[in-house]
């Protein structure tokens, strides 16, 4: 019995050995529960089946006991035990083997029906059965375990592959969505915002920041920050990097950089936000990828930190490189679009400016227009410097009109003026200045300087912009020169015209002043020296001629004064008044000269008020009356009338004289023209002044011969709509 027990123990320990070998790998924890479940004592159906197999073998052996030898009967049990060992595992197979041995010993080995073994041969046979059971069961269990493990591994591998595929799909979808989002915007800022937020989401980290380089020093402005809720406190973070440290390495080398936090901390270029530590969100690992422009130049960078799980991987880097490239292309596309758009606008403005400049009537309005256009296109404060009377360059025009230059900037302006070359901002001379000075070079040398104070220094210095500016400048210079020349020519013409007029006026006036003066002098001297020799009638005539000639002189002076007034551009002092007032005043002043002549006036009572300068219209009437008196006989009747027709008031003076010579109807209104058939006295100014005065009133004056002979002079005055309370006064 002890021997049997020891064999059982041995088989049990033998079976325990391969269990360890069956483990797929020491680390593969997932295999353990499978083995455990196989050895579970509560696997009772298998044991029951084993017992059943023993029972079945016993029945078979019992029937055949009489025909077969003992060892052959044992074969039946061996077959049963092998079957159990193959299918039901090690525990049940050993139990079955032991049970088979015990039952066989009890029923068939003599002494039968007792647990005793007489022959050592039988003991060996029984031991073989147990050994076979143990070996086969352990082998088949191992095979089964292996199959289970393989199935499990296959399931897990499939699940892992599916998960990886899902992540990949999600990332691809993220990339695709980012591509779509980026390509649907026309704003650089928005592009960066999309890029930053998508990068943070796709790579699943807490912090993403992107910025564009402002210049080749790699300083860059933060354009977009994307932060998870973990960094909510830093949402407004916008510290502008100064273009040094690790950022610079990425931009300069134009290569991605992937560091764990430890690597970052120990990096020589890393300074741990020495100054900005409080303002900057903390980092945990760092992945930075440059944004590279179409020409391979760096245009900025995008950086990530604090990945949600683990450190940044190579795959993350690839994805970010993709994103960055996509963003960079979009930004370059937008920039070139903006640039093209800007150029288009600038070209339009240039066209508009040339148009406006050509239409400008004088130099001030030309300069005003030009400055406004430049200021609008280039977004700058603009100023024009011109030499003053002493040749000193001084600011003369500004856009907008406030804000003056600094003294130093004037020095740069003077340099530009003297050398005919650009100076100031970004040029070779005075390059430290904020202002750019461009000389206005015309055909006859530099005429002034255009100074610009740009809002964004980088933009203005762009080669294309500078070229455009130079185009604007040369346009302005040419237009200015043209306008100045035109003004000078106009002034010269005016001077010449004035000279000519003055000389003819002088000769005419001196004649007309001398004639009455001669008469007066002669008559007065006669009266003084020989007065006792003249009879009273002659004396009276002499005195009268003195008086008349003096009056004529006074009229001439009045006319000259009024002409000067009109020609110097003095505005007529118009007031709404009845025509009768002026007619009455004119007739009163001509009273003496009209004596002995019939003059009928016919002014309808319903004549409207007219808007006139009464002094000037009185002069018109006096001149017309004077003209009629001069050119008609002393008793020839005159007729002064007025009427309303076609919305104007027409005033006419008709005489019964010889009328106008053919072709004289217009010429009589010319300066210094005197009627051929007349008495050839007077300056020939009266009617010309009439025309000037009537023109100034917006009316028309003309002359013609009347149907019944004699001349008719007419003038019109525009009728104003008169307010009712003035038309019909009460009280």
């Amino acid at each position, binding site marked *: 019995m002890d021997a049997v027990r020891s064999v059982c123990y041995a088989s049990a320990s033998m079976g325990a050995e391969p269990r360890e070998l069956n483990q797929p790998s020491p680390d593969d924890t997932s295999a353990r529960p499978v083995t455990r479940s196989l050895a579970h004592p509560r696997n009772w159906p298998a044991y029951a089946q084993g017992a059943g197999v023993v029972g079945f073998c016993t029945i078979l052996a019992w029937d055949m006991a009489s025909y077969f030898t003992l060892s052959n009967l044992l074969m039946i049990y061996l077959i049963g035990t092998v079957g159990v060992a193959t299918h039901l595992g090690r525990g049940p197979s050993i139990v079955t083997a032991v049970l088979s041995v015990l039952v066989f010993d009890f029923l068939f080995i003599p002494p039968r029906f007792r647990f005793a073994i007489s022959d050592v041969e039988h003991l060996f046979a029984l031991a073989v059965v147990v050994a076979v059971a143990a070996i086969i069961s352990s082998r088949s269990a191992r095979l089964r375990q292996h199959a289970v493990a393989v199935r499990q591994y296959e399931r897990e591998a499939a699940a892992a592959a599916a998960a990886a595929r899902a992540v990949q799909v999600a990332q691809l979808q993220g990339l695709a969505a980012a591509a779509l989002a980026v390509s649907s915007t026309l704003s650089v800022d928005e592009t960066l915002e999309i890029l930053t937020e998508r990068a943070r989401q796709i790579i699943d980290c807490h912090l993403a920041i992107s910025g564009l380089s402002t210049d080749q020093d790699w300083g860059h402005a933060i354009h977009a920050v994307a932060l998870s809720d973990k960094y909510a406190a830093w949402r407004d973070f916008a510290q502008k990097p100064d273009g040094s440290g690790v950022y610079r390495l990425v931009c300069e080398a134009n290569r991605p950089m992937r560091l764990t936090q430890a690597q970052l901390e120990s990096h020589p270029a890393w300074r741990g936000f020495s100054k900005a530590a409080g303002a900057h969100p903390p980092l945990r690992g760092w992945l930075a990828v440059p944004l590279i422009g179409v020409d391979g130049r760096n245009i900025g960078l995008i950086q990530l930190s604090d990945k949600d799980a683990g450190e940044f991987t190579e795959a993350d880097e690839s994805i970010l490189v993709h994103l960055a490239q996509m963003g960079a292309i979009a930004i370059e596309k937008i920039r070139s679009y903006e640039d093209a758009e800007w150029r288009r606008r600038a070209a339009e403005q240039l066209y508009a400016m040339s148009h406006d400049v050509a239409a400008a009537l004088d130099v001030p309005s030309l300069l005003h227009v030009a400055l406004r256009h430049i200021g609008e296109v280039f977004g700058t404060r603009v100023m024009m410097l011109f030499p003053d009377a002493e040749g000193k360059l001084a600011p003369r025009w500004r856009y907008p009109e406030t804000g003056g230059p600094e003294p130093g900037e004037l020095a740069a302006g003077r340099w530009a003026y003297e050398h005919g070359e650009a100076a100031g901002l970004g040029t070779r001379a005075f390059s430290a200045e904020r202002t750019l000075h461009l000389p206005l070079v015309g055909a006859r040398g530099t005429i002034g300087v255009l100074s610009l104070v740009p809002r964004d220094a980088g933009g203005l210095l762009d080669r294309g912009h500078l070229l455009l500016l130079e185009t604007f400048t040369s346009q302005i210079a040419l237009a200015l020169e043209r306008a100045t020349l035109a003004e000078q020519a106009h002034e010269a013409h005016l001077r010449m015209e004035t000279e000519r007029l003055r000389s003819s006026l002088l000769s005419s006036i001196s004649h007309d002043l001398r004639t009455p003066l001669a008469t007066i002098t002669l008559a007065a001297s006669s009266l003084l020296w020989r007065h006792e020799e003249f009879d009273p009638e002659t004396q009276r005539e002499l005195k009268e001629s003195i008086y008349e000639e003096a009056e004529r002189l006074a009229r001439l002076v*009045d006319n000259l*004064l009024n002409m000067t*007034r009109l020609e110097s551009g003095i505005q007529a002092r118009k007031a709404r008044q009845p025509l*009768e*007032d002026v007619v009455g*005043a004119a007739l*009163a002043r001509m009273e003496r000269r009209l004596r002995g002549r019939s003059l009928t*006036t016919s002014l309808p009572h319903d004549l409207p008020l007219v808007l006139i300068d009464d002094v000037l219209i009185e002069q018109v009437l006096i001149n017309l009356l004077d003209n009629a008196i001069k050119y008609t006989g002393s008793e020839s009747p005159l007729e002064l009338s007025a009427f309303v027709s076609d919305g104007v008031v027409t005033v006419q003076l008709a005489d019964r004289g010889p009328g106008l010579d053919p072709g004289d109807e217009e010429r009589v209104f010319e300066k210094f023209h005197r009627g051929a058939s007349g008495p050839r006295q007077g300056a020939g100014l009266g009617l010309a002044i009439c025309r000037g005065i009537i023109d100034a009133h917006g009316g028309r004056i003309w002359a013609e011969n009347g149907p019944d002979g004699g001349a008719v002079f007419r003038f019109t005055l525009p009728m104003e709509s008169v307010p009712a309370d003035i038309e019909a*006064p009460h009280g």
Partner: protein
Amino acid sequence: MVEAMRPGVRASSSGPSGEPAKGPTVVVIDDEPQMRRFLRAALESLGYRFHEAATGQDGLAEAATRQPDVIILDLGLPDLDGLEIIRRVREWSTVPIIVLSARDQEGDMIKALDLGANDYVSKPFGVGLLLARLRAVLRHAALASQQRAEPVFAVGALRVDLMRRRVSVDGAEVHLTPTEYRLLATLVRHAGLVVVHQQLLREVWGPNHDDQANYLRVFMLQLRRKIEADPARPRYLRTEPGVGYRLTVD
């Protein structure tokens, strides 16, 4: 009527050739010797006591020491602005002032009238015109000093009874609206003198109508149509273009 127009208001008994010592005193301030010589000859022969000054400063001294009945002032003086002289004289005296002005000095002339000058004569002028102006201002000053207005004003066929507010032409009564009457009465109060637009507007319509010269012109037109035989050639209500109106007294 003609008697009333004579210069010797304070000594109405003296005729045109009366004692010079009893005639009105006139100070002429003009820088042109010819003008002063002419005025002296004309005015002394009519019995005026004549004093002259060639500069504004002298003129102010003369005006203060001679106690003139009337000052004739040329606006274009070399040393002092004529307007300034009027301002200074008006600080202490209401003596009538007639300004002499050139035709192109209308603006100054209206300012002079506003500052208190009583009338104006444009150069060149005839002696008759100047004498008429002198008579008018003296008559006006005499009436003012006696604190009374003539109850009845008459010139030509026109007769204005200020007491009864009656107006007649050739004996036929003319019906005027209240405003027309006020306008005519104002001109009668300043008979013979020019009345500038602003003054007429103020006196007839009140202080807030300064800028409505249109009213004035329309009412003047209506007034003329009622009292003038030919409104286009007025006998009584004369227009002084650019200045104002004048009711003639002769």
